[in-house]
C-alpha cells in the first residue's frame, strides 16, 4: 500500500509539492540551527575548557569546597605520580599542571629600590616542555611584542599592564607573594614579551610564566594549584568524562582528607551545568516551535487538499472504503511527505552548516578588530555532528502528521449519502 500511495504522491504533484516544500524549508532551518547551536556550544566548551575548567580539572577538596582561585596553600602536591597514573587511566587525554596565584609586582629602579608596585594575577602553564600548552592558550597569536618564555624566570606581561608600568622588553621585575606554607615568596623575573587577550581585566594585570618558575617561587617543586585534562581529539560533549571522573574520585578523593585530589568535569564547574541545560533546552524549544508552526501550516494545506480531493474521497467511500481507512491512508501519505521533506531539508540545511563549520563567520571586525584568543574566538562556527543529521527527523515527520491528523478528521463528519450528492458522483 505504501508503494501505491507513493505513486499517487509522485503522479499528483499538486498533492505533495507544497507540503514537501514547506517541510524542506523548515527542516533546513532546523538543521542549520542545530549545527549552529552545537558550534556555539562547542566554542563555549573549547574557550572555557582551555582557560578555566579543562575538559576535566583536578584540585584539592579544600580548594573545591572553598571555591579558591590562586590559593597556593591549597595546592595539589606530589603530582608526578598522579600524572603518570592519569596517563595510564585516560590514554585519550593530556594532563597539564597549572598554577594560578596573585602576587605583588615590584619594579626596581636603577638602585634596586621600588619604582612601581601593582598587584598582579599570574597564570603559570607548561611553556618549556614538548607537551607545552602554548596552543591551548593561543599564545603565539596573542603575542604582541618580544618572544615566548624559554626559561623558568622569564615572563610575559599583559600589553596594557606593560604600557601602564612603562616597562621595556628585557626589564627585570620582582614578585612578592605567599608560598605554599604561607611564608614569604620572593623572586626576580625578566619580561620577555607581551600578550593581548582582548579582555581588559586580563591585559591590565595578567602575567604568564612557566609552571616550573611558579613552583620554585611558591616552594612547591612537585605542586600545582590545578591539573587540567584535555581530550586529545579536542572534542567535548555533555558528560563525556563522567566515567573517568567517578573512577578517579573513587580511587583518590577522600572526604576526610582536605588535601586529597578531586576531579570535576567541565559542566560541574562555574555553574556550567545550568548553561548546558539552557542550550539543550533551546534546541528542544526550536524543534517544538517548528512542529507547532509547520503543523498549523500543514493542517491548513491538508484542509485545502481535502477540499480539492473531495471527489476522490467520495469515490473511495462510494466504493466501500471505510472512513477509518481513508483517514489512515491520509496519515501514511503525510508520513511519506514528511520523510521526503526531511531528507531534502536535511541535505539543504547541511550545505550552509558545512560552510559555517569550515569557513565560519568572522566577527573580529564587530569586536573592534581586537585580536582575540583565549576567551572568545574570532569566528562563529557551526558544528556538524551525528545529531545534525537526525535533528530534522522528529519535527519533519511529526509536523505533517499533526497537520493530517487534524485536517483529515473532517472525513468522519461526512455523511456518506450526503457526500455522494455534494460530490455529484
Amino acid at each position, binding site marked *: 500500500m505504501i508503494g501505491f500511495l507513493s505513486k499517487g504522491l509522485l503522479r499528483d504533484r499538486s498533492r505533495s509539492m507544497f507540503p514537501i516544500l514547506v517541510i524542506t524549508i523548515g527542516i533546513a532551518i532546523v538543521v542549520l540551527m542545530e549545527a549552529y547551536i552545537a558550534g556555539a556550544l562547542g566554542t563555549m566548551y573549547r574557550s572555557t575548557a582551555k582557560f578555566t575548567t579543562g575538559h576535566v580539572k583536578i584540585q584539592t577538596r*579544600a580548594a573545591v569546597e572553598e571555591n579558591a582561585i590562586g590559593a597556593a*596553600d*591549597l595546592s595539589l602536591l606530589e603530582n608526578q605520580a598522579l600524572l603518570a597514573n592519569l596517563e595510564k587511566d585516560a590514554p585519550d587525554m593530556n594532563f597539564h599542571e597549572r598554577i594560578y596565584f596573585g602576587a*605583588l609586582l*615590584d619594579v*626596581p629602579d636603577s638602585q*634596586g*629600590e*621600588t619604582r612601581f*608596585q601593582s*598587584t598582579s594575577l599570574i597564570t603559570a602553564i607548561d611553556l618549556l616542555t614538548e607537551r607545552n600548552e602554548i596552543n591551548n592558550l593561543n599564545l603565539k597569536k596573542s603575542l604582541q611584542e618580544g618572544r615566548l618564555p624559554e626559561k623558568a624566570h622569564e615572563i610575559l606581561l599583559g600589553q596594557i599592564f606593560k604600557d601602564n608600568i612603562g616597562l621595556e622588553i628585557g626589564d627585570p621585575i*620582582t614578585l*612578592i607573594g*605567599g*608560598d*605554599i*606554607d*604561607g*611564608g*614569604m615568596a*620572593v*623572586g*626576580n623575573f625578566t619580561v620577555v614579551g607581551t600578550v593581548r587577550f582582548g579582555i581588559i581585566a586580563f591585559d591590565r594585570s595578567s602575567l604568564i610564566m612557566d609552571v616550573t618558575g611558579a613552583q620554585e617561587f611558591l*616552594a612547591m617543586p612537585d605542586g600545582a594549584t590545578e591539573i587540567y585534562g584535555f581530550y586529545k581529539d579536542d572534542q567535548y560533549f555533555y558528560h563525556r568524562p563522567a566515567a573517568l571522573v567517578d573512577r578517579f574520585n573513587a580511587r583518590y578523593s577522600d572526604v576526610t582528607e*582536605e*588535601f586529597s585530589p578531586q576531579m570535576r568535569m567541565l559542566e560541574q564547574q562555574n555553574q556550567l551545568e545550568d548553561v548546558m541545560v539552557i542550550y539543550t533546552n533551546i534546541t528542544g524549544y526550536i524543534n517544538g516551535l517548528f512542529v507547532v508552526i509547520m503543523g498549523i501550516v500543514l493542517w491548513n494545506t491538508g484542509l485545502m487538499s481535502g477540499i480539492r480531493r473531495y471527489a476522490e474521497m467520495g469515490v473511495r467511500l462510494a466504493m466501500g472504503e471505510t472512513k477509518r481507512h481513508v483517514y489512515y491512508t491520509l496519515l501514511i501519505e503525510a508520513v511519506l511527505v514528511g520523510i521526503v521533506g526531511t531528507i531534502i531539508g536535511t541535505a539543504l540545511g547541511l550545505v550552509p552548516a558545512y560552510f559555517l563549520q569550515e569557513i565560519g563567520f568572522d566577527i573580529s571586525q564587530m569586536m573592534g578588530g581586537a585580536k582575540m584568543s583565549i576567551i572568545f574566538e574570532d569566528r562563529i562556527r557551526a558544528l556538524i555532528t551525528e545529531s545534525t543529521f537526525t535533528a530534522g527527523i522528529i519535527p519533519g515527520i511529526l509536523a505533517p502528521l499533526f497537520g493530517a491528523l487534524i485536517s483529515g478528521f473532517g472525513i468522519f463528519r461526512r455523511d456518506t449519502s450526503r457526500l455522494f450528492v455534494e460530490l455529484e458522483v
Partner: protein
Amino acid sequence: MKKISLLLGLLFLAGDLLAGPTALEIIRKMDALQNADNQVIISSMTIKGRRATRTIESKSWIQGTEKSFTEYLAPAREKGTKMLKVGGKLWTYYPRADRVVNISGHMLRRSVLGSDMSYEDMMERRSTEETYNAVLEDEEEIGERMCYRILMTAKVDDVAYQKVKIWIDKTRFIALKQELYAASGKLLKRLDTLAVMKTSKGWYPSHMRFKDVLKDGSGTEFRVKSILFNQKISKKRFQKGQLRR
C-alpha cells in the same frame, strides 16, 4: 564653720581616692611600662597555617615609637630578611631577590611573613592617648586576674581599628586581652596575653597570641625571648644602608 569645711574637704579627697584611676590614667600607665626610649628584643613568631607551622626568629632594635629595625634570623627561607621603619615609612630587604621594597599603600594591609599581623599593625607610631578616647566600662576577671575593661574609640580617621576593647591587669598594668574592631563594629583581630615576665621596668607580656578572625588557622603566637631596655643603639642602625648589610 571651719570644721564643716575640713570635713567636706576630707570627704571629697576620700571620694577621689575611692573612685580609682580613670581610663586615661590606666592607659598612660600601661604605655609607660611597655614603651621605652629604646629596646632590643629577641623574639619568635609561630604561625600556624593549614599545611604547616612555621617559627620565625627575629631581633629588633626599637627607638621610641618612630624607628625600628628587625632582622629575621631563622628559618633559612626567611633568614636575612630585614625590615626598617622610620616614621611613616617602611622598607623590607629580601636577600633572595637582593631587593629593597618599599611597603606602602595597599601593601600595608598585607600579612607580615604570612602571619596574622599586617604591616599596618606595625606602623602605628602615635600614643594610644593621641589616637583614642578611652572609657572605663567595667572590671572583669581574665584568667584569675582582675582587669579594667576599657573601650577605646578612635578620635582620628587614619587608624587601622576604629574601636578597641582592652582588658588591663589591675595591678600589673599590662593588657591581657584586646579586641580590635572595624568602623562597622565587625571584630577583625584578637590579641591574648598568654604569659608575662618581669623585666627591669616591670611586667611585660612574654607570650601573646594574635588572631586575625577573618583568616583561617589558629593565629600567630609571639614569644619574647629577651628584652633589654634603654640600650645604646647606633644611629646607623636606622639607615637604609643597613638593610643590605
